[in-house]
């Protein structure tokens, strides 16, 4: 048994500057090649420019970031659809791939709305965030959490985080959380918009 019932990430959108140190720390720790990015930082922007009657140009442009990896969901659709049982929920509630079983059919990648499972060209199997299970076992923080210069990203026991910070993860550009019940607790940015009702757009689609 692990030390946690269910691990979860905590993310404060107001603190994040979009520097992507978390993303790079993750790539470094797991030695990920180009094309595999287990942690990504979608940027969601909106608002508009106005020209007033006096000719003054004003705006209410806003943007916010969400650092996102696998959310080790309570209702993981990747585990449900995986035909080989390679994708499984294990110790500490971490969802991971057994590379000895995976057939590389990419069905998990097709199903996951967070783009968490990614194909590894070298092993011809799927790969994904494993919550830095090796570091967790040694009592260390995941590489992404340790790297965040703004302390916007944290982790902990899902139940405790929710009791302390609430249970919000249905924010644009993420899908409604009821679909897979992600273990992600977000402290919303003042301009954060509810999933499916956003007026903004994903500003960095090629980075996701």
């Amino acid at each position, binding site marked *: 048994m692990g030390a946690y019932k269910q691990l979860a990430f905590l993310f404060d959108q107001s603190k994040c500057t979009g520097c992507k140190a978390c993303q790079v720390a993750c790539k470094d720790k797991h030695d990920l090649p180009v094309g595999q990015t287990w942690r990504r930082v979608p940027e969601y922007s909106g608002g508009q420019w106005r020209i007033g009657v006096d000719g003054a140009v004003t705006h209410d442009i806003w943007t916010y970031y969400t650092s996102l990896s696998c959310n080790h969901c309570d209702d993981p659709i990747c585990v449900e659809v995986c*035909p080989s049982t390679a994708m499984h929920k294990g110790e500490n509630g971490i969802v991971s791939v057994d590379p000895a079983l995976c057939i590389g059919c990419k*069905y998990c990648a097709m199903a996951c*709305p967070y783009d968490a499972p990614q194909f590894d060209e070298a092993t011809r199997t799927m790969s994904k965030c494993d919550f830095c299970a090796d570091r967790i076992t040694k009592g260390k923080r995941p590489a992404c959490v340790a790297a965040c210069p703004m302390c916007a990203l944290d982790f902990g026991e899902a139940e405790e985080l929710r009791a302390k910070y609430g249970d919000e993860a249905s924010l644009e*550009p993420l899908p409604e959380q009821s*679909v897979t019940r992600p273990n992600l607790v977000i402290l919303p940015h003042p301009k954060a918009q509810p999933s*499916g009702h956003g007026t903004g757009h994903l500003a960095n689609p090629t980075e996701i």
Partner: protein
Amino acid sequence: MHEFYLVVFTLTAQLAVGAFVALGLVQVFAHGAAAGERDRVNGPALTLAGPLLVLGLAVSAMHLGSPLRAANSLLHVGTSWLSAEIALGLCFLVLGGVFAVAEWCKWGRPGSRTALAVVAALSGLGLVWAMSQVYSLRTVPAWATPFTPVNFFLTTLLLGSVAVVASLATSAHVTPGENAFRDRSVLWLSLIAAAAAVATIAVQPAYLAYLTDHPDAAAQVSMDLLTVTYWPALVGSQVMLGAGALLLLFALVQAFAARRRQGTALTWPVLVATGLIVAGELVLRILFYATMTRIGFGGQ
């Protein structure tokens, strides 16, 4: 394109199931037909369905990152529809194959062979259902609808019946001669194929209306892909299906009017109609994968 293998696999597997079921249907109405007439109907169609399914399953393994581990895909039967799909595909292949060999060699009593054929057909229909559920992902609004099973079963009926008609028309061309049962099979299966093609066309507006009314932004992205980005392909597929159905009906009418031996008279128009229908279904299936949009980022 990763999905190319899936396009080929789903179409060939559905064609094989449809051809097997269509052949079963004509057998039900085979009373009074001579054994020789029946064999000349079964032979060509069964030789078509089996190899096509083997080809489809082989192609489906090609899309895997690690094809040599394909057998692992059976480990999650009961939870993963993909496992169920592969299991039912293998069931249908083995049962259908044993039935074809038994028919050929006249093994067992006719009653036992029929029972085997019914079980094989049921596993084939189960395969088509499992395929539709594989794509009914709750994270893909354009797929998680009753239209997915409806379209897959229509494809099964359409491609299956038209493939049997084409193989019978070809065999009539190669080995002409009186065969009332063959002519009757061609007539009924052509009518079924034409009806299935018309139904496929009729379903499209309902599907587009469903997408338009869907609250999720991802459904709107799929809708835009279908009606703005790829509209020529969508329209083209409908035209090909409609033209194929009309050509099949035209060939039938012409054959009857001329009171010629239907099989021989029909061969060329039937083969062209089959080509049009297969091409129409191919384009529709490519569109099915090309318009896949997930909730979340996909809806942005």
